[in-house]
């Protein structure tokens, strides 16, 4: 009798084990949900792959260079490097001061303009703000930055643009006033725009 009970118990445990294995197989999200698949560092950088300089600008007296490259895994990456002359190629990972990678399958952006903002400490106190982004179409031939003090075209190359905003006292914030980008085609027609104040507000966890 006792022997039979043990056999049934073993069978029951086996069935539960099979059920869990099959259940997890049908619920792929569970792996990432509990962090089992995290592997640590996955820097969003071009690394040692060939790069193309797509735009450069001088911000707060320092050269700022935007590099684009395609990695072996098909990711299209952009690195921002500060303090390097425009013709100096990237060397080590820590030369990179921000950037992103589009991962395959790379899709055309739904909006005419998308942008990233990076805050970095200024030697005189406060923070510099670097603006880097991309356009959705080669038909966009200029990107104009509007600030409370005026407008200017930012450097644009291969669909990527680079610029700087006035310094601020706190990181994660824009200077007072309205900031926006406008994309134009070769005939000067407005193709799209991006409200940077709205972008920062939407992307804030406190929103």
């Amino acid at each position, binding site marked *: 009798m006792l022997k039979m009970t043990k056999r049934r118990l073993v069978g029951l445990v086996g069935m539960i084990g099979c059920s869990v294995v099959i259940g997890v197989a049908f619920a792929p999200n569970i792996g990432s949900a509990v962090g089992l698949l995290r592997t640590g560092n996955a820097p969003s*950088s071009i690394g040692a792959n060939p790069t193309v300089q797509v735009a450069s600008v001088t911000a707060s007296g320092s050269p700022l260079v935007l590099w684009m490259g395609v990695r072996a895994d098909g990711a299209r990456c952009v690195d921002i490097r500060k303090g390097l002359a425009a013709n100096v190629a990237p060397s080590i990972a820590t030369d*990179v001061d921000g950037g992103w990678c589009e991962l395959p399958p790379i899709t*055309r952006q739904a909006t005419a303009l998308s942008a990233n903002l990076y805050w*970095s400490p200024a030697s005189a106190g406060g923070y510099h703000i670097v603006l880097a982004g991309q356009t959705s179409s080669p038909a966009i031939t200029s990107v104009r930055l509007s600030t409370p003090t005026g407008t200017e075209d930012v450097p644009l190359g291969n669909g990527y643009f680079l610029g700087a905003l006035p310094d601020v006292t706190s990181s994660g914030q824009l200077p007072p006033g309205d900031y926006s980008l406008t994309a134009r085609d070769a005939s000067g027609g407005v193709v799209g725009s991006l409200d940077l104040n709205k972008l920062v507000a939407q992307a804030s*966890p406190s*929103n």
Partner: protein
Amino acid sequence: MSKLAHLALRAALVGAGALIVGGVMAPEHAQSRLLATCTPTAYSPAVDYGSRLGQAVGETTCDAGAPSWSYSIYLRNHAGSTLGNPATGGPFTGNRLLSTDWTSCAGAIVHTFLYINVGGAGKSDTSGEVSGC
């Protein structure tokens, strides 16, 4: 009970168990397919132990047809204070790797915090911690 009937009963029980466990775990996945969305994943920060610099790194992956998204990414210490400088951006479609710039993290235990706003809904993820920076 014959051996065949016993085997059939056991197979039925395994199948029922799988459906129950799968049903409990799968609704979120099924819903995400119906309502295409994006998911943030915060990776453990990249750390350069020689120069004692750290970089927050994260990834956003989207279902086909998901709405545009925007993000903020932070390198934070064990207490939750932001080290260095955040990065913010958007609106994007598709999958992206994201990072902050490199910043000093000497002596700190650090993690990545990634927040995204996808179609008006906020989502976030926090990575595991890295010590010894």
